[in-house]
C-alpha cells in the first residue's frame, strides 16, 4: 500500500463557494475554437446522453457510442422512482445543505464532501432543464410540479413521472442528442462495444470498438474520451441490470492505468421479485415505495410451507417492525436486505424455493380499501402478477433482495477525470458521490448532473489547459494498430479455446461465488474462498470455454464471452477490496465489524478513505492506493434505525 493520499484535486475554500470559484478559475475554450476538438462519449444513458448533447451544443465535435440499436434504450430507462432536487417547492424545509447532508450521511460517510455539495447545488438546474425539454413530470392541479418523499427521506424532494421517471428523463436526454444529430454536431454509432482504449503519449486518445452486426473492429480517435457505461452489477450474473450492462469499458480503462475505486461497494435492493428457477436470466425490481404500506414478515417456525392465509397472526414474525420499532419496514435498503437474508438463512424463507419473504398488503387493504391501494400500487401489483401469476390483493407478495447498483467505479478527481489524462468517467461508471450506499432517487440526479452541468465545464478546462489537440494524431498512429491487434488476438483466442462449456455456465458459477461470499454479508474466510474460486474459474474459462461461430457477423456468444472474461477479473478485485476493508459501511457489511445489536460498525480511524486500485497484471496483486476523506462540514455519526 502506498502511504501518500491520492489527490482528488478539490479546490480549497468554503464548500458553498468551491464550485462557483472553480468555474471562474477554470480555463475556457473560445467558442470558435471548440469545433477543433473531438470528444468520444461511450454510453448513452443519463450521463452519456446528457454529456453528448451538451458538449455538442457548446460546439465540440461529438462521437457517441452505444451497445443497443438506439441511444434511447440505455438502462437508465428502467429507473422507476424519481429524481431528487432541492427546490423546496413543498416548503417543508429542504435546502442544498440538507440534501448534501442527507447524501453524505446516507452514503455512510464514505464520499467526498465537495463533490456531494456540488451535486446538491446543481440538482435544481436539472429539474429546470428537463421540464423545459418536455419531460412530463407529475403535476398538481394548479399546474405546478408534484413532489413526494422517497426512500425514507424526511422532506418531499423527489420529482417523478408516474413510475417511469428514468424512461422520461432518458428520452429527454435522447431528444436533446437527436436535436444535435440533426444539426450535424453528433455522430451516433449504435450496436458498438468498446473493446480497447487507445493511449498516446500518456493520454486517452481514442477507442477500438467492435461492430456487433458485422463483427468488424473499428478505430476512432479524439481529444478526450468519456466513459458513461454504467455499473458492473452483472458480475453477479443475476441483477436488476439489463442483459448487456457490463463492466468491460471501465475494466479496459483500469488495465490501461485508470484506478478502480471501492469496487466492493454494491447496493442490494430489498424489494425485487424472487428467483423462479435455474433458468432465470435477470431480476426485476419493484419500487421500494411498496414498503410504505406493505408489511414484511415470515413464519416464526422453520420450514413452514403453509400458505400465508393459513398462518395465524401469532405465528408470524414481522421481523423489521420487531427489531426497528422507530423505522419499521422503512429501514434503509441495506438493513432491509440483510435482515431478509438473515431469516432466509434461518430457514424461515417462503415460496417454493424458500428464497423470499412476504410483503403483505392485507392490513392496508383492510384499512384503506382495495381501490385506494390499487390507485397507489396498481401498476406494481400488475407487474408482479404478470411475472409470478400471483395476485397481491388476495395473497402477500414475495420479495427478495437483488443486486441493483454499484457505488464503486473508476476513480475520478473533482473534475471527473480518471487517473488517465483525457479519460473521464461519468454517472454510475465513476465512484464519486454515493459513498458506500446510494440513496433512492439520487442515481438519476448524479448521472444528469455529471453530463449536463459538470463535464461541460471541466472538459473545456482540460482542453484549454492541456491543448491535447496540438499533439496531432489520427487512427493510422501505431498505437491504434497495436490496440487493434490486441483486440483481434483476444477475440480469436476466445473463439479458439475449443472447450465444452458455454459462456453462461461460467457466468452463473461466478455469480454464485459472488452472491455467496461477496454479497450482503462478508467475512474474511468467505472472501478468501471467493478469490480462490474465482481464480480457479478463470483458469477453467480459458481452458474449457466453447464459443460457436466465427468473428464475422453477429455472434452473441462471442460478445458475451468477451464480457464474462472481464467479469472474471473484476469479481476478484471486488472480493479483494472487500477483504481489505475490514470495517462495515453502508452496503459493505463485514461480519467481523458489527455493533452489539448486529448493526454495521464503521471504523473511521482506519478506513475513512477511498480505496483506489492500480492494475499490476492479471495474475498479480493490484496496488491499493488511498484517498483520505476529510469531513469538515458534517459530523460523523453511527447510523441507527432503532
Amino acid at each position: 500500500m502506498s502511504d501518500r493520499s491520492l489527490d482528488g484535486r478539490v479546490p480549497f475554500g468554503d464548500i458553498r463557494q468551491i464550485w462557483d470559484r472553480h468555474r471562474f478559475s477554470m480555463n475556457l475554450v473560445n467558442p470558435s475554437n471548440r469545433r477543433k476538438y473531438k470528444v468520444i462519449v461511450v454510453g448513452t444513458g443519463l450521463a452519456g446522453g446528457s454529456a453528448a448533447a451538451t458538449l455538442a451544443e457548446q460546439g465540440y465535435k461529438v462521437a457517441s457510442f452505444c451497445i443497443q440499436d438506439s441511444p434511447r434504450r440505455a438502462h437508465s430507462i428502467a429507473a422507476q422512482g424519481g429524481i431528487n432536487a432541492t427546490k423546496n417547492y413543498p416548503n417543508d424545509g429542504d435546502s442544498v445543505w440538507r440534501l448534501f447532508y442527507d447524501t453524505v450521511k446516507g452514503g455512510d460517510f464514505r464520499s467526498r464532501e465537495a463533490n456531494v455539495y456540488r451535486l446538491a447545488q446543481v440538482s435544481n438546474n436539472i429539474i429546470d432543464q428537463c421540464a423545459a425539454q418536455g419531460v412530463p413530470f407529475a403535476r398538481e392541479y394548479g399546474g405546478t410540479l408534484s413532489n413526494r418523499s422517497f426512500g425514507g427521506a424526511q422532506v418531499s424532494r423527489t420529482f417523478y413521472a408516474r413510475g417511469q421517471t428514468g424512461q422520461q428523463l432518458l428520452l429527454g436526454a435522447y431528444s436533446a442528442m437527436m436535436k444535435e444529430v440533426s444539426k450535424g454536431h453528433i455522430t451516433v454509432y449504435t450496436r458498438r462495444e468498446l473493446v480497447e482504449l487507445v493511449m498516446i503519449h500518456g493520454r486517452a486518445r481514442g477507442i477500438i470498438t467492435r461492430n456487433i452486426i458485422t463483427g468488424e473492429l473499428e478505430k476512432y480517435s479524439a481529444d478526450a474520451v468519456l466513459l458513461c457505461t454504467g455499473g458492473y452489477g452483472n458480475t453477479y450474473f443475476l441483477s436488476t441490470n439489463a442483459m448487456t450492462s457490463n463492466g468491460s469499458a471501465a475494466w479496459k480503462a483500469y488495465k490501461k492505468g485508470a484506478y478502480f475505486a471501492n469496487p466492493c461497494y454494491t447496493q442490494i435492493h430489498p424489494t425485487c421479485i424472487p428467483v423462479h428457477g435455474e433458468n432465470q436470466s435477470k431480476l426485476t425490481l419493484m419500487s421500494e415505495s411498496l414498503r410504505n404500506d406493505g408489511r414484511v414478515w415470515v413464519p416464526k417456525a422453520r420450514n413452514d410451507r403453509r400458505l400465508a392465509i393459513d398462518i395465524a397472526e401469532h405465528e408470524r414474525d414481522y421481523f423489521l417492525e420487531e427489531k426497528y420499532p422507530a423505522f419499521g419496514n422503512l429501514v434503509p435498503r441495506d438493513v432491509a436486505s440483510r435482515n431478509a437474508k438473515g431469516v432466509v438463512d434461518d430457514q424461515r424463507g417462503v415460496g417454493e424455493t424458500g428464497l423470499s419473504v412476504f410483503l403483505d398488503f392485507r392490513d392496508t387493504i383492510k384499512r384503506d380499501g382495495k381501490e385506494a391501494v390499487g390507485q397507489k400500487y396498481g401498476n406494481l401489483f400488475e407487474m408482479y402478477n404478470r411475472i409470478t401469476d400471483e395476485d397481491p390483493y388476495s395473497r402477500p407478495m414475495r420479495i427478495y433482495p437483488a443486486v441493483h447498483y454499484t457505488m464503486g467505479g473508476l476513480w475520478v478527481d473533482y473534475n471527473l477525470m480518471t487517473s488517465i489524462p483525457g479519460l473521464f468517467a461519468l454517472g454510475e461508471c465513476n465512484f464519486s458521490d454515493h459513498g458506500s450506499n446510494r440513496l433512492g432517487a439520487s442515481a438519476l440526479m448524479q448521472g444528469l448532473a455529471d453530463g449536463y452541468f459538470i463535464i461541460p465545464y471541466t472538459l473545456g478546462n482540460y482542453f484549454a489547459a492541456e491543448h491535447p489537440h496540438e499533439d496531432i494524431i489520427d487512427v493510422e498512429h501505431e498505437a491504434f494498430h497495436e490496440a487493434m491487434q490486441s483486440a483481434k488476438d483476444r477475440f480469436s483466442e476466445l473463439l479458439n479455446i475449443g472447450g465444452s462449456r458455454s459462456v453462461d455456465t461460467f457466468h452463473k458459477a461466478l455469480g454464485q461465488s459472488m452472491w455467496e461470499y461477496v454479497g450482503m454479508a462478508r467475512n474474511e474466510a468467505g472472501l478468501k474462498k471467493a478469490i480462490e474460486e474465482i481464480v480457479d474459474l478463470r483458469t477453467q474459462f480459458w481452458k474449457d470455454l466453447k464459443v460457436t461461430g466465427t468473428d464475422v457477423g453477429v455472434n452473441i456468444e462471442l460478445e458475451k464471452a468477451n464480457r464474462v472474461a472481464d467479469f472474471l477479473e473484476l469479481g476478484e478485485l471486488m472480493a479483494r477490496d472487500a477483504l481489505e476493508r475490514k470495517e462495515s459501511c453502508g452496503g459493505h457489511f463485514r461480519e467481523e465489524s458489527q455493533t452489539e445489536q448486529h448493526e454495521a460498525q464503521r471504523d473511521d480511524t482506519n478506513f475513512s478513505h477511498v480505496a483506489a486500485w492500480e492494475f499490476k497484471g492479471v495474475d498479480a496483486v493490484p496496488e491499493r492506493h488511498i484517498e483520505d476523506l476529510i469531513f469538515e462540514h458534517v459530523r460523523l455519526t453511527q447510523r441507527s434505525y432503532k
Partner: protein
Amino acid sequence: MSERAKMTLKLKIWRQENARSKGRMTDYTLSGVSPDMSFLEMLDLLNEQLISQDKDPVSFDHDCREGICGMCSLVINGQAHGPEALTTTCQLHMRKFKSGDTLFIEPFRAKAFPVLKDLMVDRAAFDEIIAAGGFIDIATGSAPDANAIPVSKINADLAMDAAACIGCGACVASCKNASAMLFVSAKVAHLSHLPQGQVEADKRILSMVAKMDALGFGNCTNEAECQAVCPKGISISNIARLNRQYLRAALLSEESESMDCLEEGSH
C-alpha cells in the same frame, strides 16, 4: 424446489444468416420448459441446447427484460409481442402456452426494418424520425425555473400517456401498410400537449411526417392493428389528432410560402 410440470414445445423459428442472405423457417423441439420462464428465457434454453450441439444459437434483440427499453421484438404466432395484451415479449411468460403447442417465431417485418440476422432487425429509421423534429430545441442552461411554465394536470397526464411509447416498432410490424403513424403521432402528442412544445409544433409535424414517408413507411388506413399490439397502450386517437394538426400546419406553411413569393415578386 418442487417440480412443476415442464412443457415440451415445437418451435418454428426464422433463421437468416445476415441482411443479404435468404432466410427460412427451421423446426426445433424443446423440452424442459418451465411455465414460470419468460419467453426469452425459453429462447435462452434453446440456445444453450444448440450450443451443446455445436450449432449456431438464435440471435434476437433484448436488453432490459422488464418491458421498458423497447429492444425486444418478435412476431409470435402471427402477433407482434405475442398473444398477451399490453405485454412485451420479454414480459410474456410460458404459462400462457401449453405443452405440445407449436410456436411460430418470426422477426418484425417491414420495408423500413430490414432483418440483420435471425430475429434481429434494424430499427434505426425510428431515430431518424426523431432527429427530424421529435424534440424541443432548448440548450442546456437556458431553461427557466421549472414552475415558471405551469402545465395543467390533465395535459401533463395526456403528455405522459403518449410519452410512454418505448419505440419497439410493434405498431409498424403489425400494420399491413407498415406505417409508423402510431409512433410519430405519440411523439407529436407528447410534445404538443405541453406549452413548451408549442413553439416548434408545426415545423415538427411537417418534418417528422416527411421523414417517415421518405424512409419507406406506409400510409395509415385506420386498421387499428397498431393500437391492439402496442405493449404500452398508446391510443390511435393520437393519429386522428396528428392528422388534424398536420392539415393545419400544412395549410399555414403553404400560406406563408405564398406570402414569401408575393414579397419576393414585389421587389
